[in-house]
């Protein structure tokens, strides 16, 4: 089929496949290690030690507990996969997968670097990138809702209902918050957003209100504290995933962290300049031929994501949970009007500047 190896690499689908595999190979360990980070940081905040024992298997090398994901994963796989008798089976089996897939699909349109060789570092360079992202993010609610419905018992059901109301509410605020960004950029393509920021100030400085609303909406969309009402332990005994055990539960868990990574990546792209850094040409212009420069850009992007993950973990252990009416009030009565006002304000400023 392919005469030479160069001919094989010339085919567009081969490079796309390679990128998909590469992104997956980077994101899965990030998911695993953000769980470890969560446990270690929570331990530091609460003046405990946290998991620091598991290192390389069968040796005494401890590596600060960096082997923990291996142990956790193994535990999840070998535990009994118990299906309670009262659940709706098909939905019960489907829900963990449905919860996990959207977070990964979002990553397909995010530009995670400038260039590597002749390849643009984005899996699918869509012209409607951000709309695609919001569409897929809005599908994320099905996993939680289905899990709540399938479990066929009280607390998971309440968790599912809460989750669908919460995610729909904050999706609207989130969508409205980023509209000013695209009024400034004039393009829905996420690569264009980064180009815009590479040539000027980052958008967080031009649209601080939009960024604040977007950040908080991401917290609500990923069901993180202070908005983790769908799974609040003290009220709903873990909410929608109460009836799940072993690997299915782990899939929900991984889905949540993958959603955190996707949300952080989205914030980095939209407001923090993507792979760029404001330190001269090396960090601001696409790497045309130099592989090293391309790798540095990808590294910058991942470092920024890690920073946001750290912020999310830190906030989780510092703030108490909102009450449900407070959550709805702040979403509908504060964020939505504020983001609408922001759109109008941006429109007026652009109109004055351009006329």
């Amino acid at each position, binding site marked *: 089929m392919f005469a030479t190896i160069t001919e094989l690499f010339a085919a567009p689908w081969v490079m796309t496949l390679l990128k998909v595999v590469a992104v997956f190979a980077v994101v899965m360990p990030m998911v695993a290690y953000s769980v470890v980070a969560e446990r270690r940081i929570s331990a530091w905040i609460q003046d405990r030690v946290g998991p620091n024992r598991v290192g390389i298997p069968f040796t005494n090398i401890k590596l600060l507990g960096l082997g923990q994901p291996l142990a956790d994963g193994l535990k999840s796989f070998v535990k009994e996969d118990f299906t309670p008798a009262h659940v*709706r089976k098909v*939905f019960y089996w489907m829900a963990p997968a449905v919860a996990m897939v959207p977070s990964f699909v979002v990553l397909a349109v995010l530009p995670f670097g400038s260039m590597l060789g002749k390849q643009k570092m984005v899996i699918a360079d*869509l*012209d*409607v990138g951000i*709309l*695609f992202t*919001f*569409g*897929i*993010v*809005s*599908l994320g*609610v*099905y996993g939680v*809702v*289905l899990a*709540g*419905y399938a479990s066929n018992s009280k607390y998971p*059901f309440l968790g*599912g*209902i809460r989750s*669908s*109301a919460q*995610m*729909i509410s904050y*999706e609207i605020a989130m969508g409205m918050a980023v509209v000013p960004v695209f009024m400034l950029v004039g393009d*829905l393509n996420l690569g264009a957003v980064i180009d815009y920021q590479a040539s000027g100030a980052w958008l967080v400085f031009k649209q601080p209100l939009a960024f604040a609303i977007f950040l908080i909406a991401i917290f609500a969309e990923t069901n993180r504290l202070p908005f983790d009402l769908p799974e609040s332990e003290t009220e709903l005994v873990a909410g929608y995933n109460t009836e799940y055990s072993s690997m299915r539960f782990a899939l929900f868990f991984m889905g949540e962290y993958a959603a955190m990574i996707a949300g952080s990546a989205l914030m980095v792209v939209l407001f923090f300049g993507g792979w760029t850094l404001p330190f001269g040409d090396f960090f601001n212009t696409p790497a045309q031929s130099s592989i090293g420069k391309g790798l540095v850009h990808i590294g910058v992007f991942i470092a920024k994501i890690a920073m946001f993950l750290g912020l999310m973990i830190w906030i989780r252990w510092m703030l108490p949970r909102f009450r449900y009416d407070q959550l709805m009030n702040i979403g509908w009565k504060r964020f939505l009007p504020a983001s609408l006002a922001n759109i109008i304000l941006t429109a007026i400023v652009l109109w004055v500047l351009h006329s």
Partner: protein
Amino acid sequence: MEGTLFNIFAGLTVLSALLVVANPFSRNPVTSALFLVTTMISISGLFVLLGAYFLAAVQILVYAGAVMVLFLFVIMLLDLREAARRKLNLVSLAMGIMAVGALFSVYKSSIESKYGEASQQQEVAADTGQAEVKMVGSTRALGQALFSGDKGFILPFEIVSILLLVAMVGVILLSRKEPR
């Protein structure tokens, strides 16, 4: 490639749409709602094949992401039992077939008339390599068509907006606990 993808998405659309209304395995309303979601997503796949990326994204965002979630929400809150099999109602069946037939003939005549010719012209223009035609599916072109005054659709757009606004106010008014 495109033909295969079209067959896949079109088949998926029709199959899941059938399963929404006539599912032999389950009479559960949640199952029907989920098949409706599948239908929406495969329709957006068809939009992508037509080059209408904006419509495809909005289709997923609005229908699959928001409307259907609300459907599910309501179904779950109402706690509907599995619907019993109803007898075939001949009158409603006849009415349904008539409605589908009428809609089909409207579509058929509109495709064959003005717009069909327009799209043929576009195909010819695309063969001759005019850059403008490539913009048809893009967001910018859509916005310009919708919001420009003289040749665009600004008036219908605004009328539809007001209709939606009225519906929204009506819903809020109806769902108030104590009408004043």
